[in-house]
């Protein structure tokens, strides 16, 4: 049975695309046939994060409008042969994405892939609504920061009301998971940032993982590598564990900061 997973957040800039790239690459690394779809029509970015921006010929919208076959638009990842990317269009036409079109493409993808990861645009407009509408599970990406937590709460409300699973009687509701990103252990230690327990208490959904604030994330996006493939970084490791939990593995939650300060830094680092 294939699964459609939406990566969403409401707020922009919290790490949706980074997470969608990392999760899909992580699933593919485990051997699952995975496709990741960019739903951010007009602001294509997943292709850059995945490092395939120069190989885009046809896109999601071309497929929906019947101008290209799905097979033509899918880009096979060069590092993982179980991973494919479906880029979005740079068109400014907001109506390019239709509910029927999305459903048809997802149905076709379900026949071939184990996991279909939908990278939602920010906001709660059409693109975001369609990205979540057909989902079986949701990964809600949240920063430990007030506006992000508020928007995540709003999105959780939409996942429970404005989706196919919510509208169909008898269907199980969407399984939502919290992915806490840009987690800064140092600031949390100083009481300047909400910790995991604080956010969990407010949002009350199961925790998928905690991704530490990390220089590795920008480095990975600079070179077009999903950060999960950078297995030396703690952020990459944290994504790997989150992916394992997504597939049902029981892994203990370890929360680490990216930089482990040395003695010198611990003595003098505070003033820096």
């Amino acid at each position, binding site marked *: 049975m294939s699964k459609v997973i939406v990566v969403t957040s409401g707020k922009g800039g919290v790490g949706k695309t980074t997470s969608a790239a990392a999760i899909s690459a992580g699933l593919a690394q485990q051997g699952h046939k995975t496709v990741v779809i960019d739903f951010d029509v007009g602001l294509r970015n997943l292709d850059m994060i995945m490092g395939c921006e120069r190989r885009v010929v046809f896109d999601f919208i071309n497929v929906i409008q019947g101008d290209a076959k799905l097979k033509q638009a899918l880009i096979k990842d060069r590092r993982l042969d179980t991973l494919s990317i479906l880029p979005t269009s740079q068109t400014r036409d907001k109506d390019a994405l239709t509910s029927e079109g999305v459903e048809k493409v997802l149905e076709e993808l379900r026949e071939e892939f184990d996991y279909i990861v939908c990278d939602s645009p920010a906001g709660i407009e059409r693109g975001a609504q369609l990205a979540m509408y057909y989902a079986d599970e949701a990964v809600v990406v949240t920063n430990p920061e007030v506006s992000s937590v508020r928007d995540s709460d*709003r999105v959780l409300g939409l996942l429970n009301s404005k989706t196919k699973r919510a509208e169909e009687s008898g269907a199980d509701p969407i399984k939502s998971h919290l992915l806490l990103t840009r987690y800064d252990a140092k600031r949390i230690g*100083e*009481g300047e940032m909400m910790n995991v327990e604080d956010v969990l*208490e*407010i949002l009350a959904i199961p925790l998928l993982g905690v991704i530490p604030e990390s220089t590795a994330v920008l480095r990975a996006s600079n070179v077009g590598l999903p950060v999960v493939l950078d297995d030396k970084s703690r952020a990459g490791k944290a994504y790997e564990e989150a992916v394992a939990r997504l597939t049902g593995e029981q892994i203990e939650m370890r929360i680490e900061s990216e930089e482990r300060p040395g003695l010198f830094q611990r003595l003098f680092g505070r003033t820096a």
Partner: protein
Amino acid sequence: MFGFSFKPRNKGKSAQTAKERLQILLAHERGGNGSSPDYLPMLQRDILEAIKKHVHVERDAVDIRMERDDELSSLEINIELPGGRTVQSSASS
């Protein structure tokens, strides 16, 4: 009158403040559909019309404010009457 407090907060405990603010806000937002009650503009219009039957007041003479707190929400209505008098009314729920 507006109940703003400027209590000095412990520096370095801003995370706690963030959490409390969110808990209060979301308790309200989850109840309704939107973020703020959408009947307020309509209420403002109705009040204005009711007053206009008796006294001539300007459109922007009615000021409605809402304060939301953990336990108590209050609605405060200020109507500026011509001649410098002000009628105040407040309701709590």
